[in-house]
């Protein structure tokens, strides 16, 4: 299956791209996606151990099982207002 991963602000600066599509085994979790990303090395390896994540526009836990077509956003510390 394929999931879209999105990177914002400091994470986008780190990985050098706002969006990357990743192929994963069916049923892989956010944690597994994160491990795969880190395995790409360079900026990806510098993502934090446990970043906040949103799946399909909602905050989600790292044990969340993903599905084909999911949009997974890595949310750096927020600073609205």
């Amino acid at each position, binding site marked *: 299956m394929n999931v879209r991963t*999105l990177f*914002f*602000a*400091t994470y986008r*600066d780190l990985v050098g791209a706002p969006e990357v599509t990743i192929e994963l085994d069916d049923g892989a979790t956010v944690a597994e996606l994160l491990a795969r990303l880190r395995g790409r090395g360079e900026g990806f390896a510098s993502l934090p151990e*446990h*970043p*906040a*994540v*949103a799946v399909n*526009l*909602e*905050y*989600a*836990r*790292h044990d969340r099982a993903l599905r084909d077509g999911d949009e997974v*956003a890595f*949310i*750096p*510390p*927020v*600073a*609205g*207002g």
Partner: protein
Amino acid sequence: MHTAITTEPIDPAAVLDGLAAPEDGAVLLFVGVVRDHADERPVRGMRYEAYVPMAERELRSIGEEAVRRAGSDRLVIVHRIGELGIGEVSVAIAVATPHRAEAYETSRWIIEAIKRRLPVWKHEHYTDGGSAWVEGTDPSLQGAS
């Protein structure tokens, strides 16, 4: 209740227009403004970025919880994104309630929820030419993940 993420300038007075119902005795308007310094460093402007579809959804969810807390649906939250100069409005929160306690408590709860949860980031431009992302709050530290 009305919530929005907008790229247009926010007119705080317009946010109050027609907000209060006849049963309301208190209206509270909070306006967040870009200020000319961060800690001691002079700032000349700020870029606000958002994960727009998620920010719209989170802001609506904050609004819905605020309506429950306030016991009032007379509530507007508008957050601006894009390039803002000093003195420009980044966020306006208006709440009308029968009694003042609910207005103060709800307004404060909303701005704290925005700072805790809303997927928005600030890139400060300093007058010395430098720029940096503003250090934020990790949403996962509030039990969001």
